[in-house]
């Protein structure tokens, strides 16, 4: 029962949202050092003020063709995420950045307005999503950060 803010962005034409409380910052640090032989969706490492951060290509993670880095591309740096932690502190987890095609704005919704995700949106598997919400003229798919960071 409350309002949640989502940072919204696009991959191709589809609009997505990510719970803003899970985001540390959004920047344009895209000077990636590729990691040979890493998982496909790990597109490299960046140096963020002395911290080395693993960057995912969200498109590849979703099984879509690789993102092209353009002047609109942004890097969404997530707060350190830890699995199976009972407390909310994010100490000790790994910090991950997500490359997205472009950044939109912040949308605020009441959690009752969020609908369950369909099995898939376009070609994206529904397990990567926690739900969808409607804005005036768009459908925004909301990311399931835990699933995205999960390792097979």
């Amino acid at each position, binding site marked *: 029962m409350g309002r949640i803010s989502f940072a919204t962005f696009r991959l191709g034409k589809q609009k997505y949202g990510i719970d803003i409380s899970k985001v540390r910052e959004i920047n344009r640090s895209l*000077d990636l*050092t*590729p*990691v*040979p*032989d*890493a*998982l496909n969706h*790990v597109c*490299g*490492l*960046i*140096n963020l003020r*002395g911290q*080395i*951060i*693993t960057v*995912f290509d969200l498109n590849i993670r979703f099984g879509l063709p690789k993102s092209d880095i353009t002047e609109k591309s942004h890097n969404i740096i997530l707060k350190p995420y830890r699995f199976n932690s009972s407390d909310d502190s994010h100490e000790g987890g*790994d*910090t*991950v950045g997500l490359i997205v095609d472009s950044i939109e704005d912040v949308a605020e919704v009441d959690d009752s307005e969020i609908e369950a995700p369909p099995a898939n949106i376009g070609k994206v598997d529904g397990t990567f999503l926690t739900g969808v919400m409607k804005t005036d003229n768009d459908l925004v798919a909301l990311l399931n950060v835990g699933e995205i*960071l999960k*390792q097979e």
Partner: protein
Amino acid sequence: MMVGGIDSDKLVNKAISNGILSKEQSKQMTPQEKLDLIFLPGLSTAEKVSEVSGRGVGMDVVKTNIEKLGGHVELDSVLGEGSTVLLRLPLTLAIIPSLIVRVEKQRFAVPQVNIVELVWVRAGEVSKRIEQLGSIDVLRLRGKLLPLVRLADVLRIKMTFVGDETLEPGEERRHRIADRRGGDFENLDQEHRVCDKDRRQNWQNDFNILVLRVGSNQFGIIVDELFETEEIVVKPLSRFIKSCKCFTGATIMGDGQVAMILDAAGISTKAQLSFAEAETENQKREEERLVTASNTAEIRNVLLFENNPEETFAFPVDAITRLESFRISDIKKVGSREYFNLLGKSTPLLRLENQISVRSFPEDSKEAFLLIPKPSYGRAGILASNIVDAVETNVALNQDESESRGVEGSAMLNDKLTVFLDPKELFSEFESFEGRK
């Protein structure tokens, strides 16, 4: 009854019954690989399980924690005798001196502790020094064979090369290391290389090889370029890239870019290097060498170089500290003496033609090498126009009373008359000669 050593067959059976290993896999395993099964989690050969033993945790924990610190564990065991567990830990955990290398567009840091030496194989010598032994490529290094891989192959970095005519990068088409491109590099003469325009292209075909050490094994990796050694701060890898066994960590370079730190052990595993083949071959050659060596008294480890291209000289390797390549224009003259600025110290230059009766250094050379002797021999650097090779030989020298002082004798090496220098005599002669000036 207590019996020392690890029964590797027992380990294999246990692994098979636990479903970790299939029977087929076990047949292909080397004894060492069988022994290394002990590091797998959940494997124990203890028949009785108590609070502390038989849980299959012990060696797994040792390995994980040692590797977390950047070290590695080696196990050697003889059934009925005992086991040796070798733990290797890095000296400092946070800052390690590393050599920075380049492959294609990426830089990597290689910890100095893993590096045995750097070897530079010129394009023209590639087919002579790199051979194929079964499925592996090997480098002939001072009579020993060293398994060799391209780092780009191991890391699956797409290789490009600059086309000879187009100067456009294209995809690499050669598959074997010893394969050469169309050009006739074998007959490329030295003068050709000195010419600035051609040089870069030809140098691209030279091999920079890092000889790395993993435990008691050594192997070579080919990289595109070598940079400096730097002290780097090791940053741990996130769990998303932990699966890449070739890296131990990452570091931030001076320019802010991230570079991966290579793990020698991981690379050798990834490349599936088989040391056994090279080792057997080495042993075979070693035996042959000993047989021939027993016939003659002395084995010499010498560096072959030229002063005048017509004449080859041999200088004992153990009397040399380093080789320096430099431009002739950098030679400073004081009166009739010549000096070269080496790391801030002026080093006298020894021209062989001034000491012994040999042909003089070619006038038109722009570049040359300097053989820097160990300080106990002398402090002058010997001028050389070309470094030929380092070889081990047991030839008998022809000694002649009439030889000038500084020459030990001469012999035929690879169908070339080679003059063997006597460093002690040569330098003492040089110093008294310089003193007279």
